[in-house]
Structure formats: structure tokens, C-alpha cells
């Protein structure tokens, strides 16, 4: 059934249909609509056999999720920005203990300056926490990704973040088709934890590991993470077969001409300029690049679906022979460039690729088609620098040499 839904509502309903045992959250914009909706469903009984816990901080939200997951419940939480950083210690802890918690991150900038709008700097700060990070390009995918996230996380014993752009997706209304309760019940296996706090079979969870075993523990975590790419791909493929639409996957391919998502699209070729991006800006890029293709310009689009584990091989396969890349990046590694660009660069090491980092949409700055078109045209004309800030206001900063002088307050 197709219905008109806000992104947060779609996510909340889908999460509810995944039958979590414990939902625990602390409110923060722009995550609020998701947890509000879940709290309503917990009260009305639409979300049954589930405890909704209001806590006093994000740190406790993740800690409650840790306890719930370890005690044998499917656990869910949602946060953003400062909230994700406030729970950071527990985020790492959940991964280290192999607890497959699923968390929606309604991506938002991290202050100071405080800013409630969208970019990816929050999730990027947790890129090495040991969680899967799946990015939604639109609200249909945001909802669907949660089903895949629970399935993959629980098979792997690795927690998963579903990242959806704050406001741009969470507060946007779209025509969506939600997975029904029957479909999800048939698709998602019941939660059966590898280890649990069980009085019949008592175990000690969370021991101290000294220098003689810590490296091995991390190595095993690393091996499990290497398995994750295949598991995400397998569940995404199962999802495509069961639901008849694409969601998840490691890398999203797009038809060269229509720019529609198409898993069977050919890889980019040697003459193509490939634009790599993740999150909702992919939609803007579809709209931007389709007319450029129609003009005959050699441009292709590649979307990152899973940022962690980083899909090095799938990305290289999608980029094919293209050696000219523009990465549209919503998070900035200070003094270096876009964060995603760093991952793309590492994946393409020794390929001789020219990679441009276009830092865009920080703190909710709208990413305009015209601006993207201009950046791509400049790249095609070899006029785009290695690092470019999209729509940087002239006069907003001192004239070059930027960095040699303090920005006036």
C-alpha cells in the first residue's frame, strides 16, 4: 500500500514492525519524530511486547540498549549529533561486546557552533566505533534499511547505524510503500543472540582483556567486520527479491542515462567523470546529472550505501575504468578535506585516479543543483581544485592565503 508519510513516521513504523523488545531514547532534533512515534505505538499496543524507556541522556539510552540486547531483546535507539557523541563511549562498548543494536542516526552537524541542521559529521566521528553504517538516499530506503540492518546486525553480532539526513529526510514527506508486518515477519528471523545473560546458562560478559589477549580480540572483531560486506550484500539481495525494490547494498549503481537506481548498470568507463556521494544528496545528483548526460557530458553517479564496512571492492567495480572522481562530502576532516574522500582515496590507491573533494551542505546549507552542476562542469574542464567548498560565500572569509591568517570573528 502506497501512502504519504513523513520519513520519521516511516522509520518508526518499520522499526515497530521489526518487533523490538526494548526501545530506549533521549530526545534530540532531528531524531525526535521517530521516537515520539514509537512511544505512541508502545502506548497504543501497536508495538507489543516492547518496553519503551525514557532515559535521562543518550549515554544511558545506549547503555539501556546494551543491557537489553545482552539480556536477549532486540534493542533499538535513535539519536543525532551531540547525542551520538555524548553516547560515544557506549557506542564503542556495544560493538566490542558484539551486541547487534540498531540505531537510527538522524544526521546532524556537530558543534561548536551549535547547529541543528544536516551534515554527516556526527556519524563520521563514530566511523571507527565498530558499527555498520548504512546510508539512506531517500525515505523509502531509510525505512527499508532498518529491516536489512536488524537482519545483518544480528547475523554478524555487530551493531548497525542507519544514517538518514536530518530534516532533509526525517522531516520530509514522500509517497512510500512500507514493508508490512507480514512481510517483515517472513523476512526477519527472530532475535536469537549468540550470547545472553541467561540464568540457566550463566556467563560473564564484558571481562577485562590484558595485553596478552586484546590484540587478538580486536583481530577477531576485524575478521567479523570483513564478513560484514558479504552479509550486507546478501540481505540486501534477499530484500530486493522479497520486496521487489532496491535498498541497502554496499554501493548503489545508477543507469547512465536515466540516472535511475539500477544494480545492473554497467561500470563507469575511462572517459567518465564519476561523482561519488552518499545520503540524500544522491537524489539531488540524479536530478543534476541526468540533463548533463542528455547534453552528452560523460558523467556517472555512484552512491555509497554502506560506509562501514567501507566497500572498497564494490566501489572499484562500480567506478570501472574511470580515473576521474568527484566526491561530494558532507563532513570535513579539518586540515585535510572531505571525510568520505579519504576513504575513496584509500580504496583507489595506486590506480592513478584524480580525486576532487567537494565539501558541501555543512550544517544544513542547501546543496543546489546549479552549484553541483557548476562543480561538475569545472571538474570536466579541469578547473576544479582538489578541495572545493561548494557555495563558499565570497567575502565571508579573508582573501588568500586562507589559513595563514585568522578568520575575523
Amino acid at each position, binding site marked *: 500500500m502506497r501512502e504519504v508519510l513523513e520519513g520519521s513516521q516511516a522509520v518508526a513504523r518499520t522499526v515497530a514492525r521489526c518487533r523490538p523488545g526494548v526501545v530506549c531514547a533521549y530526545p534530540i532534533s532531528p531524531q525526535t519524530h521517530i521516537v515520539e512515534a514509537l512511544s505512541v505505538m508502545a502506548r497504543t499496543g501497536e508495538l507489543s511486547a516492547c518496553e519503551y524507556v525514557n532515559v*535521562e541522556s543518550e549515554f544511558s539510552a545506549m547503555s539501556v540498549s546494551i543491557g537489553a540486547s545482552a539480556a536477549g531483546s532486540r534493542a533499538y535507539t535513535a539519536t543525532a549529533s551531540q547525542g551520538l557523541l555524548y553516547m560515544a563511549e*557506549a557506542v564503542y562498548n556495544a560493538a566490542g561486546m558484539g551486541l547487534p543494536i540498531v540505531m537510527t542516526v538522524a544526521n546532524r552537524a556537530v558543534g561548536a557552533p551549535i547547529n541543528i541542521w544536516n551534515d554527516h559529521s556526527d556519524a563520521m566521528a563514530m566511523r571507527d566505533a565498530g558499527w555498520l553504517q548504512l546510508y539512506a538516499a531517500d525515505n523509502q530506503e531509510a525505512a527499508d534499511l532498518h529491516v536489512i540492518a536488524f537482519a545483518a546486525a544480528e547475523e554478524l553480532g555487530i551493531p548497525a547505524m542507519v544514517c538518514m539526513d536530518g530534516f532533509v529526510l526525517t522531516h520530509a514527506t514522500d509517497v512510500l510503500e512500507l514493508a508490512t508486518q507480514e512481510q517483515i515477519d517472513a523476512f526477519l528471523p527472530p532475535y536469537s543472540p549468540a550470547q545472553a545473560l541467561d*540464568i540457566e546458562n*550463566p556467563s560473564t560478559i564484558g571481562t577485562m582483556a590484558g595485553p596478552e*589477549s586484546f590484540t587478538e580480540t580486536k583481530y577477531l572483531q576485524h575478521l567479523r567486520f570483513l564478513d560484514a560486506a558479504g552479509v550486507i550484500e546478501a540481505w540486501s539481495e534477499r530484500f530486493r527479491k522479497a520486496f521487489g525494490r532496491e535498498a541497502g547494498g554496499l554501493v548503489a549503481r545508477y543507469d547512465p542515462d536515466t540516472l535511475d537506481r539500477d544494480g545492473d548498470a554497467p561500470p563507469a568507463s575511462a572517459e567518465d567523470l564519476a561523482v561519488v556521494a552518499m545520503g540524500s544528496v544522491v537524489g539531488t545528483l540524479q536530478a543534476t546529472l541526468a540533463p548533463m548526460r542528455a547534453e552528452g557530458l560523460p558523467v556517472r553517479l555512484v552512491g555509497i550505501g554502506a560506509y562501514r564496512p567501507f566497500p572498497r571492492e564494490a566501489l572499484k567495480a562500480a567506478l570501472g575504468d574511470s580515473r576521474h572522481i568527484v566526491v561530494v562530502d558532507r563532513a570535513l576532516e579539518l586540515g585535510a578535506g572531505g571525510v568520505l574522500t579519504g576513504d575513496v582515496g584509500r580504496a583507489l590507491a595506486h590506480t592513478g585516479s584524480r580525486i576532487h573533494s567537494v565539501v558541501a551542505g555543512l550544517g544544513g546549507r542547501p546543496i543546489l543543483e546549479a552549484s553541483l552542476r557548476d562543480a561538475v562542469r569545472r571538474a570536466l574542464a579541469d578547473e576544479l581544485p582538489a578541495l572545493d567548498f561548494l557555495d563558499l560565500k565570497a567575502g565571508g572569509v579573508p582573501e588568500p592565503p586562507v589559513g595563514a591568517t585568522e578568520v575575523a570573528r
Partner: protein
Amino acid sequence: MSTVHIPFLQTGTLAVGGRLLDDAERSVQSHADRPSSLTKGHRACQGCAEALAARWVMDTAVEATDGRLVVANATGCLEVFSTLYPESAWKPPWIHSLFANAAAVATGIASSLHAQGRDDVRVLAQGGDGGTVDIGLAAVSGMFERNDDVLYVCYDNQGYMNTGVQRSSATPASARTATTPAVGRHPGAPQGTGKSMVKIAMAHEIPYVASATVADLRDLEHKVRTAMAIRGARYLHVLVPCPLGWGSQSSESISLSRAAVQSGIFPVVEARAGELTDVQRIRERADVEEYLRPQARFAHLFKPGGEDGLQRWRALAEANIRHYDLLGGRP
């Protein structure tokens, strides 16, 4: 044939285990089949009152729940000395996550069990004073305020002993720690009384709050049993002398605990829904010196210039005696 009447003096509350009492009145520890929840092989220091208290607390809770108990532990001595991989000294299902979140992890476990329809399985959280009154206070307060079905036990040794004896906000006035050295014009911890977690817990008006020491293990056991018979958030604060941090002899952990109670320094109380319901009266009043003098952390109080500090300790004891009526109206 003449008979000599030998009084059995070891039948009171202070007799370990109470082996001479009727079976029903005996302590959990007096039975051969006691749970030994914190079992042999752990690495606690000799004379560690935390290990002793934890064993009594846990065994009582295990017995009170008929073995249906899950434990969440904060980072700290208790966690470190009991679970160095690949060993564990814990028999019940036990989890350690972080320093500051034992209360919240316990809430998560309790919520999960409730959602699974397993309200018969109970949850106990435990940590030291650092994990409770300092870094973990927000999570503990949140658990109290929500009245989650968790017994939280704080083993208070009045400092960060696991990291090498630094000051916590439960460290009492004038105590020497690694970060409040006994040097300068005001040696030791700045004056104050240490944060009263019992009063903070009572202010949440949770169903049950109590304090106890290892000097009266039957009382400790009674309080755990009382707590496990109640649903909702419960708090138990146990004073646990630390020979390493306090600079006391390993053999003095019990006598120091007793001196803390009998001098009025550590009130042993019970409260329900925010109201004080029971106070352990001072049996035989001790001077604060009896508590302070054996501890090297207070050695500077007994040197020239230490008299002011000693007076403040006497004032603290007097204030407690008045506030909690520890002498029960006696002079």
C-alpha cells in the same frame, strides 16, 4: 556430677554465619550449600571489604531470588579483580559494560526481562563510590526516578582505589589521597562531608534505601533480603574499608567499620519512600579517634596542627548523632 554452664556467646548478630542459631535464622553463609556467587580465585587485596560485602550481598540476593538473578557491574576494583579474561569469579550471569552506566545497563536488562515476561528474574547493579556518586550519578538518578526494578549496591571505599587512590566526591574531609596529598596548610581532602548518596537516594523517594557495613554482616544480609522482597528502585550503600587506600591493616576492615558506626561517622539506616524508617543505634559509643587513628590517610590529624581536623570529625559525628538520633535519646 556437677555441670558447668558455658554461655554460647556467639549467637548474636555479630557471630559470623550464626551456626548455633536455628536453621531458619542462620545466615546464607552458614550453609554448606551457600551460593558462593563471588567464588575463589579472584584477585582482591587481603582484607578487601568490598570483596567480602559483594559476596554477602550477592549470595543473599541469589538465595532470595532462588537463583534468578542477573548482575550489572560498573568498572572498578570489583570488576577488575574478578574478571580478568579468560577467568571469571562470578557464578550468576554477570555483565560489565562501562564505568558510568551500571544503573542504565541494569535498567536495560530489567526492561528486556519484563518485555520477555520474565519478571521472576531480578536485576542487581553494583559499583564503587566513583561509579555511583561521581561519574555514574546521572544514570543512577535516572534509574531511581523511573523506579526501575533494580537493586543498586554501592560499595563505598571513599575513593578511586582501582586507579591508585585518588579523591572521589565520597572521600571524607581531610583524607589523604593521591590527589589530595597530606601536605601544605590544609593537608588531605578539602573540608566537607563527602556526598551523601543515602540522602540523595532518599530524595528520589524510591521504595527502599539502606546503608550497612561489613561489621554487621547479618544486618547487611537482612537489608539485601528486604530489598529483594520489594519491587522498584532500591539502593544499598555499604561502607567498605580499603586497606590499600586507607592505609590500614588487612585485619582491621571489620573493626574500622564498627568504629565508623559506633562513633556516629557512618549512620546505618533504612528508609522507605523517602522517609527514615529505622536507624541502628550506637551500641557502645566510640570516639572518632578509634576510627581515624588506625588509618594512615588520617595520620596528619595526629600530628601538631591536626587538632582542628579532629574537631571537625567530632563535629561531624555529633551532627550525625543528632540528625539520626543515633543514641536513641541517651546522653
